[in-house]
């Protein structure tokens, strides 16, 4: 393929579209760096019960003990002592859109949230510098008994549910960044769907980081009780900074018997952000868990949505797409562990590397011994768009049962000459043809997202592929 594909730094176009910073109106900010005092300050500001403070402190100890991962993206420039770990922007939470501070409304208006809220959403929990400043739950959801709030509120108002699951799917000692999050977590969504309830409209939350050298540590907990269904969407944008920022989130999900949960993400952090996330779901008997994971932004992302198939008949699916442009490292994948018989899993991963970017797939499929009726299929496709970009695939399959069938396939190539020739023979320029092929390449994932996300994702890809010249 010719090197004529136009190349634009994400920074330029990004800056134009989203790259703006609001004046800092933070009311409470902790000192730089992470100490026990910081953690106590955070817990006190949230007026947390004793058990949560103890949880945080224990996690802090673990954070100091656990080593950095010896594999994955390059994290050598992360400076833990130079970051601020908490900033609370306004007092209290708003129920109504109109009551939000003007500049925060403005930020969200520019990012197109109001229209979305009107048409598609049941409730919006929007995050501004760590706190959920706005959430709105529709009457019918409330009537059905669906709980959707920030996690702090859930800790105070529904401690029985929270205590039952919080930190059990991803314990603080799981890895260094899970420990970090467990110590300084702030914000994030709490969702509980009662048995048999189907939430038809996707629940969403937006995140926003608006401070120099700021870490985002939201923690989400979603529980779908027996036979229920919910679709949760996570999407984020952030302004451009000059210092490095860290986003280290934890997402814990439980799908009880016969429940179904879909969790979709389109991540588009600015190019200085380190995005290190631990996401894991437990799927019980006949439950279905679906991760739809889109990674477009950030300087480095390490994220491997995981599904533990805990009960017979459980099913897991991961749809992952990564776009690694100039200066980016997308280290993503999926982990599926089969602990029960008659469980199945499907992982589809698509990645695109361009302008020297590196996209890596890291996956694990493990089948314990003594299980029967296991089916697993993993498919990884990678497109490399120029000679300087890179693509890696590191899958691990560990099978200990006879009655299991495991299939894995991976392909890496550039855009096929024949496809380019075919489209160009219909009058499209080489660049137009390449964009069309790339859109086609990611379509299976885009199809699974709600429309405004699909549109945003397609536009983001176009932005990456073409110049910002209209």
């Amino acid at each position, binding site marked *: 393929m010719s090197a004529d594909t136009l190349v634009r730094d994400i920074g330029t176009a990004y800056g134009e579209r989203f790259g703006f910073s609001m004046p800092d109106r933070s009311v409470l900010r902790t000192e730089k760096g992470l100490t026990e005092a910081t953690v106590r300050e955070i817990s006190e500001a949230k007026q947390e019960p004793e058990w949560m403070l103890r949880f945080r402190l224990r996690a802090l100890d673990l954070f100091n003990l656990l080593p950095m991962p010896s594999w994955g993206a390059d994290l050598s420039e992360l400076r833990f002592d130079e970051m601020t770990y908490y900033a609370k922007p306004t007092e209290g939470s708003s129920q109504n859109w109109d009551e939000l501070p003007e500049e925060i409304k403005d930020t969200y208006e520019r990012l197109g949230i109001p229209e979305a809220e009107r048409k598609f959403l049941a409730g919006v929990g929007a995050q501004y510098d760590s706190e959920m400043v706005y959430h709105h739950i529709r009457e019918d959801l409330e009537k059905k008994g669906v709980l959707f709030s920030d996690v702090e509120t859930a800790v105070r108002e529904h401690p029985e549910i929270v205590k039952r699951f919080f930190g059990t799917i991803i314990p603080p000692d799981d890895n260094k960044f899970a420990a970090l999050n467990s110590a300084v977590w702030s914000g994030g969504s709490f969702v509980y769907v009662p048995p048999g309830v189907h939430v038809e409209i996707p629940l969403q939350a937006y995140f926003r980081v608006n401070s120099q050298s700021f870490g985002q540590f939201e923690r989400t907990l979603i529980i779908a009780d027996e036979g229920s269904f919910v679709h949760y969407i996570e999407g984020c944008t952030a302004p451009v900074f000059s210092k490095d920022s860290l986003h280290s989130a934890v997402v814990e999900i439980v799908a009880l018997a016969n429940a179904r949960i879909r969790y979709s993400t389109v991540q588009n952090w600015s190019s200085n952000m380190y995005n290190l996330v631990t996401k894991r779901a437990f799927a019980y008997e006949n439950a279905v868990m679906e991760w739809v994971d889109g990674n477009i932004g950030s300087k480095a992302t390490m994220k491997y949505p995981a599904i533990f198939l805990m009960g017979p008949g459980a099913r897991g699916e991961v749809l992952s797409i990564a776009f690694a442009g100039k200066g980016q490292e997308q280290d993503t994948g999926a982990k599926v562990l089969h602990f029960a018989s008659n469980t199945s899993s499907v992982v589809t991963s698509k990645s695109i590397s361009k302008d020297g970017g590196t996209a890596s797939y890291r996956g694990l499929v493990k089948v314990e011994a003594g299980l029967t009726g296991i089916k697993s299929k993993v498919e990884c496709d990678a497109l490399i768009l120029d000679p300087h970009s890179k693509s890696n695939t590191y899958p691990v399959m560990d099978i200990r049962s006879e009655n299991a069938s495991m299939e894995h396939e991976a392909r890496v190539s550039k855009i*096929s*000459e*024949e*496809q380019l*020739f*075919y*489209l*160009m*023979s*219909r*009058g*499209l*320029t*080489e660049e*137009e*043809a390449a964009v*069309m*092929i790339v*859109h*086609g*390449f*990611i*379509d*299976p994932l885009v199809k699974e997202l709600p429309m405004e996300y699909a549109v945003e994702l397609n536009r983001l890809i176009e932005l990456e592929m073409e110049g910002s010249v209209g």
Partner: protein
Amino acid sequence: MKGLQIRGLTARIDEKIIINGLDLTVEDGQIHALMGPNGHGKSTLANILMGHPRYTVQEGAITLDDTDLMTLDVSQRARRGLFLAFQYPAEIPGLTVAKFLKRVADLRRDPPKNAAAFLGELKENLKFLEIDPSFVNRYLNDGFSGGEKKRMEILQLLTIRPRFAIFDETDSGLDVDALKVVSAGINRMRGEGFSALLITHYRRLLDLVRPDRVHILERGHIVASGGFELVELLEQDGYDGIRRLVGGTKEAVYER
């Protein structure tokens, strides 16, 4: 001159010369047939006309309505009105037929005024070609049978409305019904402002889309040109019959 003109074309792939001193002219409004034994350059010629990067033209000129095509790349040739119905169309998973057709319709000199107009034309073409409407939501050529792929090429023909179309063995592998539909599609384009080259081995297509002239390509150049009687001769005596007629020399051209 309105139409396609090829003069003294010599072209190779890597070190191998495939087209060797080829001359061919198709005037505006005409449909010519190109036949010849396998491996002698018919498909190669089609790909070279379209500008496939793997082939190198050593000598010769190709013009469409007096525009020199040699200086234009593939997409530019297409936008000048050249169209190739592929023998083995590429598959583009993830790209729906509808989205694709809308894109190429918009590149026409007279694009559809709006989405409604486009959908109207599309519906009509689908009906004409007896293609199930659900087709438009499928991914372009992905998982299509041979026959479905060929019909898709004709659907593109009717959507794009090119000046000059080359059909690379479009009839191969088609059943009687599919062949009728494909022929109807080609005949629909017939007339002033359109000319075509049908590359084929068999008579069937040519009975339905009657060519104004027939050429035989062998060893990289045209060894015989004439009327429909060449097709009949070919059917009866095979390529040997043609060779006997032509005397096996490079210069001999059979005229009637």
